[in-house]
């Protein structure tokens, strides 16, 4: 059984048909990449999975149909979403933001361990525990958004454009963190315009254009694909 499965998912905003029948499945422990240009529907797909927009079709997570599950419960069930906007609590400190990620958890020891793990994963956050989220750089905010999501003790993480607008040196830090999380068995659904970044991490990928999956395959297949190389990866 797939960890997360989408079957013929459609999203319509008024007359606009934003997702035109997306089907894909993510296996436990893998990093699944979704690439495609701005406006292709990547974020809409993640929003649908997270329960933030209405959709037709089915989304199942560990065999449970998510249609009837509230977005809060989806988080509590271990499917945690880092949005492109990050949606941090701007006037909370780093520490308070992280505590919010674990606000529904009762396992005090587990929360304490996870706090330590996040601070170890992102030493920059450790140095800035008392700093307000709003005053941090984009890269630090991205680390905080991922850290906050990890505090919810996820089985699967959905990352939307985690490298957007970040300096290469920060992207390396995020890369290192993603590799480590994968080694620890976390499943990640990664939506990225930065195809190079997605290809580096994902084992399997989909290319979405105008709401439809144009191509699906392994990262090797994507690397070798002429169209993907020319349109999305560029010369590296």
């Amino acid at each position, binding site marked *: 059984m797939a960890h997360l499965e989408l079957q013929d998912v459609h999203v319509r905003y008024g007359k606009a048909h934003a997702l035109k029948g997306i089907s894909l499945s993510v296996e436990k422990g893998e990093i699944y990449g979704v690439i495609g240009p701005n406006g292709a529907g990547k974020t809409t797909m993640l929003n649908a999975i*997270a329960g*933030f927009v209405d959709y037709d079709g089915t989304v199942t997570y560990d065999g449970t149909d998510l249609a009837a599950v*509230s*977005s*809060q*419960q989806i*988080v*509590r069930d271990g499917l*945690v*979403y*880092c*949005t492109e*906007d990050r*949606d*941090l*609590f*701007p*006037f*909370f400190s780093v520490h*308070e933001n992280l*505590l*919010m*990620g*674990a*606000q*529904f958890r009762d396992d005090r020891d587990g929360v304490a361990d996870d706090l330590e793990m996040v601070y170890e994963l992102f030493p920059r956050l450790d140095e800035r525990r008392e700093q307000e989220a*709003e005053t941090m750089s984009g890269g630090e905010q991205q680390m905080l958004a991922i850290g*906050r*999501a990890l505090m*919810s003790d996820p089985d699967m993480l959905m990352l939307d454009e985690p490298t957007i607008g970040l300096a290469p040196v920060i992207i390396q830090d995020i890369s290192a963190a993603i590799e480590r999380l994968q080694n620890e068995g976390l499943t990640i659904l990664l939506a990225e315009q930065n195809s190079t970044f997605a290809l580096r991490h994902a084992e399997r990928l989909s290319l979405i254009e105008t709401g439809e999956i144009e191509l699906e395959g392994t990262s090797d297949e994507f690397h070798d694909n002429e169209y993907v190389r020319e349109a999305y990866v560029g010369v590296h």
Partner: protein
Amino acid sequence: MISQLLSILVLGAMISAVYALIAIGFTMIFGVGGVLNLAHGALIMIGAFAYLGLTSSAGALSLPPVVGFVLAVAITAGASYVLYAGLVTYIEDNIVITFLATVVVALLLTELIIIQFGAEPSQLIPVVPGSIYLEAVGTRIRYVELVAFIVSWIAIGLLWYYVTKTDEGRSILATSMSTRGAELTGVDLGTVKSRTWLIAGAFAGIAGVFIGTLQSTTPEMWLNPLALAFIIVVIGGIGSIKGSVVAAYLIGYLETASIEILGPSFQGVLSLIVLAAVLLVLPHGLYGRELVHE
């Protein structure tokens, strides 16, 4: 002159604490749901009249004042919750409809109060009777003013502990900063809003008993606290609890000083001038945050 200043200092501190309760409830409800609750003053009125009904020697119950106070606070908190769960929750996405509906509720409650208690001002029995002459200050204060001050600050302190030290309370502040962020961290928005309305109602109940005792208990008594809530919240910064407390003290002292120095008819004038000045110079208020409620 010095004794007048001391007197302003002491009297202003008392009433400002009650004003802070009014403003905190109002701003929290706006913060978590974007609802401008124009029935907030009416909740304060419910607190005063519930207390009147429970403790009045003419009434059937004539409970001891302290018991009446506790019950009046509970009743107001309950009324606030019913207002949210029975009405606002169905319309809160539409700002204008919510705005109008809460006005209608305030007017309806006014009518019901008139039917039940009449239109004439009523006298509340002080929670604690008596007064003391403060020789050093040269003014007489009523014990009930002192009680209002202490109870208000205990309530503010408990709230502060709740929203900064507990997950449940922190979720309320978090929701006021980012609704989407709250959803992403598994916060149940309905629960957060219900709790917020309960807290705001309890605060309004406390304020209602003391405002009713210290100022007046009439079916129109909701207007002034509602105006105060607006003024204080705008000056303090919409959505900020700290700003509400600071601005409540600013306004409370301005009012007290106006009454002492210029006379009772000037009570609200300075506050409005300060409000206009703040809107011009600091449109986000003293502790205003542009982002509050997306």
